């Protein structure tokens, strides 16, 4: 009986521990398997491209250049939505926005990241706008002491200037940021450069080729630091793509496709913003807005949606194509096309300005043996990356980068991957979720955060930092006057081809467009 009990107890004990051998095996083998799994996930596909390592991702962020002796006093000419975004990058936030971003004493993620961003040591010293409410709203940014790295405990109100000429003439301003309608870009930037002010100019650079030539010559002769506002110059994907292309990963590039699509009134620049309804002849300086264009009666439609009027705007190509062009231009160093064939027309939003809403263009680069196409519509919001066709691989590029091997190429013959699946893929970490279609398009296009030096930083901040650092003699601007010139001439050739319904050629010796 006793033996029976002992047997039972032993049996129960063994049963109770029955699963331990399985756990033992798990314990011995799991780590090796996890490591294997993780190494598969992190597998470096770079060797398949046969270009060695990539230098672009190793780029270091320039340390802060500001100190107590070199505070830069910046004036903002034109204070619409874009200017206020840039003020944010420069380290200024509107008091209302600060309030909205503190809920029950807690900082929102936006405010937190604003406070943690680099302090560029820039003073928002002046503002002017043809609409007094915009100037006032801009001025209010200077009325709080909420700054990256913590405020200095005192505020210095920005000065409201009556017009850009007064601001440029002021010795209280070292540099200017221009965020005005396209038709006034050249005039303001040229005057500022002549007065020795450094210039940050929003894209597109100029409304005409003649203005582009004059602005480039002025910037070069005055030596001021110039930056054009294509912040996608800071995106890591384009820097990597440039290096890959230059190291031969794509083979011979014969074709580049670019596309932009928007849909609906907002996308077509028929918009109504915060202060628009309050705008009238008394608080808008209409003559100043016209900036030398033929005098006409005050028209709020023209004033607030100037993009839709060829007299003041630069068509869809100036607004949208320039983004795409600058992205592929920095990868391939395309420059100005020799000829441009293009058609465009206004089919849809006919009750508002003369802006073309469907445009197709073919840009030829015979010396490079390639062509670039652009298709743009304001009646479809479909999204497409730019595509670079190489003899060895095709690259889809925006904020991310995807490469597909060419089935008939030789370079990647031994790479065992289907041509339908990306051979190489890169996307920056930390891209936040966004909701609206337009915002998504902007983000994918390269206007959100980018990865650099192990950090995730907003591309706009990097772009203005580059300008500020260059003014202080550290580094150079990436979207300089030469690439700005290429951008301005290229998109203007498309507009000219559409306007004249003829081929547009670039006479690079005389720096002139030839029609027909």
């Amino acid at each position, binding site marked *: 009986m006793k033996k029976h009990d002992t047997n039972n107890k032993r049996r*129960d004990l063994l*049963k*109770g*521990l*029955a*699963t*331990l051998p*399985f*756990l033992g095996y*798990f314990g011995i083998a*799991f*780590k090796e398997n*996890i*490591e294997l*799994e*993780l190494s598969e*996930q992190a597998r470096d596909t770079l060797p398949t491209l046969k270009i060695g390592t990539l230098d672009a991702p190793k780029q270091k962020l320039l340390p802060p250049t500001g100190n107590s002796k070199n505070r830069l006093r910046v004036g903002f000419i034109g204070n619409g939505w874009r200017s206020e975004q840039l003020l944010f990058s420069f380290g200024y936030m509107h008091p209302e926005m600060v309030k909205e971003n503190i809920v029950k004493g807690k900082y929102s*993620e936006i405010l937190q990241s604003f406070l943690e961003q680099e302090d560029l040591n820039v003073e928002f010293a002046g503002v002017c706008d043809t609409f007094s409410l915009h100037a006032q709203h801009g001025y209010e940014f200077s009325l709080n002491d909420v700054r990256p790295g913590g405020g200095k405990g005192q505020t210095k109100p920005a000065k409201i200037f009556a017009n850009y000429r007064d601001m440029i003439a002021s010795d209280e301003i070292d540099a200017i940021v221009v965020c005005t309608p396209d038709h006034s870009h050249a005039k303001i930037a040229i005057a500022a450069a002549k007065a020795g002010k450094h210039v940050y100019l929003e894209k597109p650079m100029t409304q005409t080729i003649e203005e582009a030539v004059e602005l480039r010559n002025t910037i070069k002769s005055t030596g001021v630091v110039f930056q054009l506002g294509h912040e996608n110059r800071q995106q890591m994907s384009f820097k990597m793509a440039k290096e890959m292309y230059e190291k031969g990963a794509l083979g011979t590039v014969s074709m580049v496709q670019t596309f932009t699509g928007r849909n609906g009134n907002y996308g077509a620049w028929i918009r109504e913003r915060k202060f628009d309804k309050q705008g009238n002849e008394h608080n808008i300086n209409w003559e100043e807005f016209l900036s030398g264009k033929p005098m006409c009666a005050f028209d709020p439609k023209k004033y607030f949606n100037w993009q839709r009027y060829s007299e003041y705007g630069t068509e869809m190509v100036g607004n949208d194509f320039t983004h795409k062009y600058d992205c592929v231009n920095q990868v391939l160093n395309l420059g100005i096309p020799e000829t441009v064939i293009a058609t465009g027309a206004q089919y849809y939003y006919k009750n508002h300005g003369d802006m073309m809403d469907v445009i197709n263009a073919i840009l030829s680069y015979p010396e490079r043996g390639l062509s670039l196409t652009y298709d743009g519509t304001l009646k479809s919001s479909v999204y497409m990356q730019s595509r670079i066709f190489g003899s060895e691989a095709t690259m889809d590029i925006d904020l991310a980068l995807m490469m597909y091997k060419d089935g008939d190429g030789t370079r990647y013959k031994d790479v065992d991957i289907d041509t339908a699946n990306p051979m190489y893929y890169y996307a920056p970490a930390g891209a936040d*979720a966004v909701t609206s279609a337009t915002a998504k398009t902007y983000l994918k296009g390269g206007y959100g955060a980018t990865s650099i030096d192990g950090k995730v930083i907003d591309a706009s901040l990097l772009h203005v930092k580059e300008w500020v650092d260059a003014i202080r003699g550290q580094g150079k601007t990436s979207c300089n006057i030469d690439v700005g010139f290429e951008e301005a001439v290229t998109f203007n050739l498309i507009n000219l081809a559409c306007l004249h319904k003829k081929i547009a050629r670039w006479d690079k010796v005389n720096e002139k467009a030839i029609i027909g």
Partner: protein
Amino acid sequence: MKNEKITTGEFSNWQTYSLTFLRILIGWHFLYEGLVKLYTPGWTAKGYLLGAYGPLAPVFKWMAQSKSILTFVDVLNEWGLVLIGLSLFVGLFSKYSSLCGVALLSFYYLAYPPFAGLGTNTHVEGSYWIVNKNLIEMAALFVLYQFPSGYITGIDSFFKYRKRDIAKE
């Protein structure tokens, strides 16, 4: 009654072993899932939560937006999976960890519910309608809760609460 049956030998050995085998499989699955997350540098549920759809999607997305809640969700996920997995594996508190497992899986199920017309879950393979592998694993865990094999083939068998539980039923 059920627990009495299993411990008093009213279940055949094969029935007990089958339940034990099921417990080990699910324990293995949970433990490995948890350990992979713990070993992956910077692992976070953020992407998974942001991609959620269905009626409760706003709740999951909201979790991803708040830093402190996201940290809590991440820790709960990693350690929840590891501890439930271990518990099932060795048969310690396995009756209650089965329920915890059901609760955890219900979150995964509700974040990407396989209901018609809600969209495609890019996180899974195969085709599912109402019933998916998460739901089946939840059901299996509920079976383990009802038939706690740990009371025989687990460390639970050495403890007094086993007898108390049995007496209650």
